[in-house]
């Protein structure tokens, strides 16, 4: 496969719209006759509604409707879905029954002519509940496990090798609930045209996925459901599904025959749009005295909702990351009275890597080896889980590059041996990994008479810079200048693409852009046209006039082939960090970060660097500050706001150096690029924990690493 993608840095193509405030996110869309919806949510955690008094709210000025389970129209597609969660519990049917399945569950929609009036009227709804005992504490209910429908048990070799080896290690790890908290609040605006046609503006990572969900829920024809989501103010996974409240708001708009807009509150962002689940992990590891891994056992128990199974690949990394002959993994879920989780940046792997990469560090110390050398000694040349070659794997080079850059081998390996002023100094590192995917995507190219090129695909940009990368790829294939190329996305009427998730957008959609531009060149050649020196050569206007068309158009579907079965494809990251720990107060500061990405060819260097730095910053939050805390007596959050749920602020973030291996993967796609969004974060929390150990001599196995844990005896 010819590889002619060059990686010259260009500025973000939508930068101007964003720095001037002109970019329109869904909440900024206004349509004539628009009404506003505010959700009333349950204050109990499990039970049922005895009575709900909406009279006062209905009589409040400007109120058009108050919808509860008593007067909510049925959602036709929901009735048809008979799937059951593993617990055998009932499905969540928002406003479909009197049942309360989690704290903060919407129980009424208040719709008024203005937002203020809807907000006021929502305070007038009075509810009486019948409470039942609830379960929200995973640690307390960890034995009530269910076998998930996917990602079940795995074993190779001797299942006991981990505990019979000469050197053994057993350790338990905890990660708390983490919440995506994108800056933009979630919501939806629905506009019906009659009974069978609807247009929706929303915050989604996949307009086609949202279109499909709405089509199914209301039993409509796909062409009659249009979804728009051009600008998305961050997602990190929470936009990977169309949430039940979106559907009931769309239903409300249909019933009222008026457009309805819902913008959720920050508090509701903690309960209704998913989270990274609280997870308990146990690792047992065995090695020979000279540092060869001989057995690993990795078990994870994650929380899910009573009404739906949520699963993620928490233990998968342990199966293939290291050359270990005997590996057993086990993954279980516990249904609780909570909203359902959703994938969050580095889903599963970020949780699992904290445990695995902490344990690997610990084992390296046990066998008296440097953690980098220990990893290199146990490097897997081929994928030991699937017995296939890696499509590309430059980990060894990445270890060396990162180690040199941060001065790894100059440190004193002895824990609690380094100081700077009053502060203890520690170095830590870890590995991150995530599958390198390529899905299916279709892209349309339109070459205009003025030599400008429009590319269209129903993908998303939640922040990484999809349009920028696509324009860059088209620029490199066609030679047209950046300003002459426009990429359109976030509209379900465009040619189909998958959701923006799993770090796969550049690989998936970029391949379609590459293929459609290549096909365009072929079409042009047949008409005596070509690209030369950044412009169209030949008389395109005559060609268009002869064809009677406004532009030359070609649409191309693009997807991977047999190579996906022959190879194991992964993106890798190596994180090195230096932390300072204050022995008096237990405060940890991340002082320096070097992150190396082996993610194939870098298509767009500026946006790629932003992704890496951003992911590491998310990793700092995961390691040190982020934790959504439930008061289990009531089953509700105590810190469901941005003052108390601590995402990092600029002062928490040191200089982050990113190094790209920047070698094309010869297999995965025509650009040779692998994903980057997830690996930027995966493993980083372990690097911090390992650095804290090096600084203090203390292993913290429960995130976040707060001062009280460091100082606890």
């Amino acid at each position: 496969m010819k590889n002619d993608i060059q990686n010259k840095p260009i500025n973000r193509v939508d930068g101007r719209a964003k720095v001037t405030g002109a970019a329109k996110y869904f909440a900024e869309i206004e349509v004539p006759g628009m009404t506003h919806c505010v959700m009333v949510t349950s204050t109990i955690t499990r039970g049922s509604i005895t009575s709900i008094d909406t009279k006062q709210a209905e009589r409040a000025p400007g109120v058009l409707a108050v919808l509860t389970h008593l007067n909510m129209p049925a959602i036709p597609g929901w009735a048809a879905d008979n799937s059951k969660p593993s617990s055998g519990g009932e499905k969540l049917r928002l406003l479909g029954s009197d049942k309360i399945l989690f704290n903060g569950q919407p129980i009424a929609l208040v719709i008024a002519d203005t937002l203020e009036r809807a907000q006021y009227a929502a305070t007038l709804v009075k509810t009486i509940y019948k409470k039942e005992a609830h379960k929200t504490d995973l640690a307390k209910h960890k034995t009530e496990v269910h076998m998930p429908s996917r990602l079940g048990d795995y074993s190779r070799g001797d299942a006991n090798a981990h505990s019979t080896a000469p050197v053994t290690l057993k350790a338990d790890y905890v990660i708390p609930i983490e919440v995506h908290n994108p800056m933009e609040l979630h919501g939806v605006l629905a506009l019906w045209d009659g009974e069978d046609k609807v247009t929706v503006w929303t915050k989604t990572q996949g307009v086609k996925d949202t279109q499909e969900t709405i089509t199914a829920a209301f039993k409509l024809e796909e062409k009659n459901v249009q979804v728009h989501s051009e600008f998305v103010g961050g997602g990190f996974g929470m936009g990977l599904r169309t949430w039940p409240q979106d559907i009931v708001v769309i239903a409300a708009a249909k019933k009222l025959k008026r457009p309805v807009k819902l913008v959720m509150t920050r508090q509701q962002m903690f309960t209704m749009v998913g989270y990274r689940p609280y997870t308990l992990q146990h690792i047992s590891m065995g090695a020979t005295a000279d540092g060869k891994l001989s057995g690993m056992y990795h078990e994870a128990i994650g929380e899910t909702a009573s009404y739906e199974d949520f699963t993620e690949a928490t233990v998968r990394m342990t199966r293939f990351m290291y050359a270990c002959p005997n590996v057993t993994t086990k993954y279980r879920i516990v249904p609780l009275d909570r909203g359902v989780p959703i994938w969050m940046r580095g889903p599963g792997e970020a949780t699992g890597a904290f445990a695995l990469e902490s344990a690997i560090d610990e084992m390296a110390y046990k066998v008296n080896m440097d953690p980098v050398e220990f990893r290199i000694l146990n490097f897997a040349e081929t994928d030991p889980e699937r017995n296939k070659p890696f499509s590309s794997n430059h980990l060894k080079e990445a270890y060396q590059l990162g180690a040199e850059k941060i001065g790894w081998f100059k440190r004193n390996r002895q824990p609690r041996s380094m100081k700077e002023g009053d502060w203890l100094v520690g170095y830590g590192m870890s590995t991150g990994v995530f599958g390198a995917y390529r899905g299916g995507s279709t892209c349309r190219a339109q070459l205009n008479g003025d030599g400008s090129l429009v590319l269209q695909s129903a993908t998303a940009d939640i922040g990484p810079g999809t349009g920028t990368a696509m324009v860059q790829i088209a620029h490199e294939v066609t030679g047209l200048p950046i300003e002459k190329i426009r990429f359109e996305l976030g509209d379900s009427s465009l040619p189909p693409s998958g959701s923006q998730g799993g770090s796969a957008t550049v690989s998936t959609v970029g391949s379609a852009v590459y293929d459609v531009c290549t096909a365009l060149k072929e079409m042009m050649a047949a008409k005596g046209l070509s690209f030369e020196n950044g412009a169209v050569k030949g008389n395109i206007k005559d060609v268009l006039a002869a064809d009677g068309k406004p532009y030359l158009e070609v649409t191309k579907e693009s997807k991977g082939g047999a190579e996906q079965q022959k190879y194991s494809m992964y993106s890798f990251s190596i994180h090195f960090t230096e932390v300072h720990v204050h022995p008096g107060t237990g405060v940890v500061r991340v002082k320096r970060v070097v992150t190396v990405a082996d993610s194939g060819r870098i298509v767009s260097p500026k946006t790629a660097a932003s992704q890496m730095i951003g992911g590491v910053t998310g990793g700092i939050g995961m390691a040190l500050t982020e934790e959504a805390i439930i008061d289990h007596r009531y089953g509700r959050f105590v810190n469901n706001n941005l003052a108390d749920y601590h995402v990092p602020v600029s002062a928490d973030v040191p200089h982050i150096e990113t190094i790209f291996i920047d070698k094309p993967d010869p297999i995965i796609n025509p650009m040779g690029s692998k994903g980057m969004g997830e690996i930027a974060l995966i493993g980083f929390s372990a690097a911090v924990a390992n650095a804290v150990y090096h600084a203090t001599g203390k292993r913290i196995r429960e995130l976040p690493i707060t001062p009280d844990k460091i100082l606890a005896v």
Partner: protein
Amino acid sequence: MLRFILNNEDIGTTLSPGMPLLDFIRYHQHLTGTKAGCNEGDCGACTILIGDLHNGELRYRSFTSCLTPLGNARGKHIVTIEGVSMPSLNPIQQALIDNSATQCGFCTPGFVMSLAGFCLSRQVPKRRRAIAAIDGNICRCTGYKSIEKTASIIANFVKQRNETDPVTFAVEQQILPSWFSGIEERLKKLTLSLNGEPAAAGTPIVGGGTDLYVQKPEDIREQSLRFFFDDPSLKGISRQGNKCIFGASSTATDLLESAVMQEYFPQLENYIKLVSSTPIRNMATIAGNFINASPIGDLTIFFLALDTTLEFNTGRILPLRQLYKGYKQLNKTEEEYVCRCWFELPDKDTLFHFEKVSKRTHLDIASVNTAICIRMQDGYISKARISAGGLNPVPGLLTDTAAFLEGQIPDDALVQQACAIAQKEISPISDARGTADYKRLLLEQLIKAHFITLFPSLPIQV
């Protein structure tokens, strides 16, 4: 009629003055560049600038519009992202793009406005201050490092202004549109035409709004309110004899910029930067912090150690230390409000220090905070006051600890004993900000930090 200038437009509105300014901007003026991210002043996506005439001089500060009552816009210049955007990008916007400092872009207008606020500040422009200007803005994607690069570039750019007036410089350099040059005159005219609305006694009081709009936005939006933020009789920080007198509506930023405070508290900037964020410091009033009665109010702890005295509208005078009767219970009647406050300025023998530990470096509520004020006489501690927050249901003084210190010569043993006594004066609970044990330990460490800072030569065991 509530009158003010919004960007380049004269506004006259009869809408409820209790409405959050953000709602007015977004829903009534349809200026949607200002984003709603939390409606609690935590995220900075709704940051705007507010310009007003301060001693006849136009002064801009950043505000979170979600917590600003429309009533506080009266007679002022409100600037949104649309107001700083021109046909060609301004240097802040261009630098953000060039440094790849915008990702999903949702927080970006807020960052632009915070940096514009830095450009218009009359403080000496420094890189450190440009970066401090974004301390109230959260970016989740997160481009902080790229945004800081932008801040450095802007700081260097603004350094060229030398003695030029900030607005004049910003217009000359196309940081702001040219119509900004006329704002000062327009505001002067507007001020003359303002008719203050008489506030009915007994209606709720709003100062900066930073707590009220978090606690009960639905309740106050349509209510009749008394707006105290700009009441000239409640403003001003001055010295009278050995006392510092400040109006109840003075803000944390007013403190920071006060010549008296800067003279008597050389470390003031280091203390104040630990308090919330730039926009909240521009908005939150000091008396609001006292009356909020949070067990952990930073400024309350600061002023408790200075034994601040309060004067109510009724003429009643009360030491701050006697204001708190119990958790969120105040020694004041419904009709009483604080008018002014005073404390004795530290003389050359008096030492003061403030410490705060929070989970996040900035923009956070303290786990524990404490301040100390001690007077030295011939090497002895003649008078001591230590305040502490986050350890009891009310913010208060550690009186036994202070009494123990008085008459003693500071040394390691004394500090260790003082720490032990302090432990008996507190009853912390375990919560989201730390375990009870950790808070006990923090107090001990922070008392030691006080002495290490105030007596650098003392060998204190930590």
